């Protein structure tokens, strides 16, 4: 079968992609692809604005804002630039715009980020959390269990690669409970943060393509802001489910390792035999 463009619903999802070049270290544009394609396949149009440094748009016009990861050097640039964007970003968050913030983007939505070396960076304070740099990096496959009223208990899978240890305050809820991996700080067993429709996470991979339930949750909540409750027609997600299952298997196989690469033997550890299947 082929994924066709869905019948036009006349719905338009407005997306603001924050720092698409500056903050794009782990190919997180895959998150944008997942949102755009899953909308297109359902006849929902997407309008994407790329937002660079020195631009201060009205962020409340967006239904969904993407803010991804970068290395420390990029993060410094973003942190400085963000202060001019902060009031409008906070207004958007309060007016229920959906945010997906990953890794450095997640950290910068909090109050502050103190790197292991170097001066503290100020965040925008939308999420009640702060982050401190650690001496070791968590670099491994991760799986977390989340629960939302729309979809009940669901598993998010991905890869984490961060030295930051994030601590949540009372104003933020964790995104999920760690099943395998390290999550926010490697101690309290939780990963990510949620406030209203603002979602922060360390999961990349990128996170959305192989977690279609989460992509659809973000799309539904983003559309609800202007169109009310919209039922998304189901898609054939067999490809995504297989990628999800493979990633979950990896997360479980690497459970307890700080660095997956150090724990990887030279030969492939999973050899699923000669299974051949048509997608």
């Amino acid at each position: 079968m082929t994924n066709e463009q869905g019948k036009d619903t006349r719905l338009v999802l407005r997306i603001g992609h924050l720092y698409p070049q500056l903050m794009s270290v782990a190919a997180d544009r895959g998150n944008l692809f997942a949102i755009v394609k899953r909308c297109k396949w359902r006849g929902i149009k997407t309008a994407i604005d790329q937002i660079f440094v020195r631009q201060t748009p009205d962020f409340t016009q967006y239904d969904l804002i993407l803010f991804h990861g970068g290395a420390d050097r990029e993060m410094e640039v973003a942190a400085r630039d963000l202060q001019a964007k902060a009031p409008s970003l906070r207004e958007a968050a309060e007016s229920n715009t959906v945010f997906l913030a990953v890794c450095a983007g997640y950290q910068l939505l909090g109050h502050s980020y103190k790197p292991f070396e170097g001066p503290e960076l100020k965040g925008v304070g939308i999420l009640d959390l702060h982050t401190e740099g650690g001496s070791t990096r968590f670099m491994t496959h991760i799986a977390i269990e989340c629960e939302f009223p729309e979809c009940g208990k669901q598993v998010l899978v991905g890869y984490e690669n961060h030295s930051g240890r994030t601590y949540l305050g009372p104003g933020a809820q964790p995104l999920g409970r760690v099943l395998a991996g390290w999550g926010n700080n490697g101690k309290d067993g939780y990963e990510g943060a949620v406030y209203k429709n603002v979602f922060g996470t360390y999961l990349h991979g990128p996170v959305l393509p192989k977690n279609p339930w989460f992509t659809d949750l973000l799309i539904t909540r983003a559309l609800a802001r202007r169109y009310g409750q919209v039922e998304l027609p189901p898609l054939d997600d067999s490809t995504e489910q297989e990628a999800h299952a493979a990633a979950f298997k990896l997360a479980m196989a690497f459970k307890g390792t700080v660095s997956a690469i150090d724990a990887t033997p030279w030969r492939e550890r999973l050899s699923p035999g000669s299974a051949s299947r048509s997608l």
Partner: protein
Amino acid sequence: MADYSKHGGGGTSWPGRARLALAISAGKLAGASGRLFRIGGGTSLPGMIARRIDPNVLRSVMATTTAKKIVITGSNGKTTTARMTAAIADASGRRVSHNRTGSNLLQGVTSVVVNFADIFGRLDSDLLLFEIDEGTMPVAMPEIQPDVVVITNIFRDQLDRYGELYSVAKALDKLLESLPETATIVLNGNDPQVASFGQQARARKLYFGLRTTDVGRPVPEHAADVIRCIRCNEDLVYEVAYLSHLGLYRCPNCGYELPSLDVAATSIHLDPRGDGPTQVTMETPLGQLELTLPLPGVHNVYNAAAAVAASIAAGFGIEKVPAALSNIRTAFGRLEKIQAGDQTIYLAFVKNPTSFNLVLRLIAQHPGEKHLLLVASNTVVDGEDFAWLWDVDLEEISPQVADVICSGTKAEELAMRLKYAEVPLDRVRVIHEREAALDAALQNAGPGGTLYIMASYTPTQELRRIMQKRGWVKPYWEE
């Protein structure tokens, strides 16, 4: 400079010399049996065994040799640059020892010494050529004490192994400070980050690159890594971008710009069908060169410019360059053309968005619909973090895709990536077992057809081993 005293100087005392001899002999034996029993090329095994017996084996041999030592490092282009440099040195009458199979971690580098030295650690070579993984440089460089260090480029590569891009760059830059005045650092001037290296170094610097508007795009592609000024973080302005962030750049804020290039390709004519040959005019401090490279793509112009600069730095001259480079062959797995009965296979080893995109763009120029086999695995050399697949522009080739087989432990992620690049689902199949995947892909290609294989490191070797068994390729260590 490294402090030898604290390492015991393996070759100086009698027990030390005996140990060195034993280490080299055991390493040689391991390599020979590996080849004899066809269990592998023995490209890293001899080094591994020898280091286990005498951890100072590389250091000891390096300290006594009079040969020139060239180290080639960077994200992409190491193997082909090393091969080109070896060809130029060879044509210039130098005896070359070289880790030519691309086994570029510490063990592979030590294997060069074990394979080419006699049991007393003496080398009968004029040039020792080492291709070294950028993450291995901090441990390998002090042991080798090179005369010439070539840095090809720095791209995003295996984030989970080396942390982030800048930490790799910082470590490399720092290392260059340990080189003496007599050494030469050969740097890619088109790479804003690499060009900024060695500011604190005492060694001489030689810059290579492209300076032409014959090729390239007006702005860097999306997967470009370094597009901000290395000094002031302002966005760089490009007159032309050749490959990812490599280009003619300038900072509008502080005026940082590319250095004047010592070895510069000033005119480039690429084969429009993406297959080669490439005509290049190259300016050098020793005069102008007219080159015909039998290899396709801008990346091979970079490899040639780096090799020419390295040869000049090592004192080989440029007279033999055109002849040496006119019959250079693709290194194994670098879009290697393989005859498989009446079918043709192009085998490409892809390890990061830059190399993958480069291959996609080249084969998109080949006429007709494409039959593909994509293989990605998670091993130490291939990397665990496969996120970078989403920086690969599969969209550029998706309209041409007739069918794809996905294999390896990351097969499902590959299939999903293809789905989001809008390759119709009924054209994509997952087959984990390697040989079955190859056979299915060849069946897809049909009689007389062409198959394109893009694979990460370990699967490239595995596929080549299968093709070797079938008599389609020679073992890579016999190339």
